[in-house]
């Protein structure tokens, strides 16, 4: 499955890129699977995603829990807890 990944704040900085397009293996079913898969892609991913429980994910620009399936996702946002307002 081809999907566009977009990164923000310190996740973006640690990966040193704002976005990328990835072809995900079929074994990646949920958000948690995706994060685990990304961590195998290199040291920078391991560093950026090491505190997995604080990482927030949005599927097609809507917040998603880590146990949610990513089927149908065109764009997946990965970012730290929000600090606006």
């Amino acid at each position, binding site marked *: 499955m081809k999907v566009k990944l*977009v990164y*923000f*704040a*310190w996740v973006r900085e640690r990966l040193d890129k704002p976005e990328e397009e990835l072809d995900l293996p079929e074994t990646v079913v949920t958000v948690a699977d995706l994060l685990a898969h990304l961590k195998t892609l290199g040291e920078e991913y391991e560093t950026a995603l090491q505190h997995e429980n*604080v990482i927030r994910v*949005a599927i097609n*620009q*809507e*917040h998603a829990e880590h146990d949610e399936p990513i089927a149908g996702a065109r764009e997946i*946002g990965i*970012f*730290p*807890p*929000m*600090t*606006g*307002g």
Partner: protein
Amino acid sequence: MTMSLTPTIRVQSEDFDLQKEVDKLTAGRTDIGAVVTFSGLCRDEGGALSALELEHYPGMAEAEMRRIAELAIERFSLQGLTAIHRYGKIAPGENIVLVIAASPHRQAAFDGANFVMDFLKTSAPFWKKEHAASGEARGWVPAKDADDSARDRWSKITESPARGG
């Protein structure tokens, strides 16, 4: 039955004018009895900061603010709601965020603005980075548990009946 109402939602780099936004919300209306305006400003933390840099997720930021605004309109039967959030580099003393809630009586307007801010802080995709007085980037502002608690109290409060203003 309440009339469906479209909130005004904007994500922008430029500043906003509180009075202008209030005027826009109340123009031509004679049914509004209460307008609560909240504005959030950039602090210098005792001289330590020269700026906050706000990053956002374009598209999702607006969508999430709209979702929160619509929840508030329904929950507090608001007559009008404006939410504006800035992004980019913001100097101490400058505006960051504006929420205006209008209702027939004061309690709903206070609660509506409060509710929108509590949810906006924890679920609208914005991130703050601090710039030190020296000009160097100091790092990202950590999320506060207190903000989660502020949001969660809304699920404990039972629907309050409309009260006189």
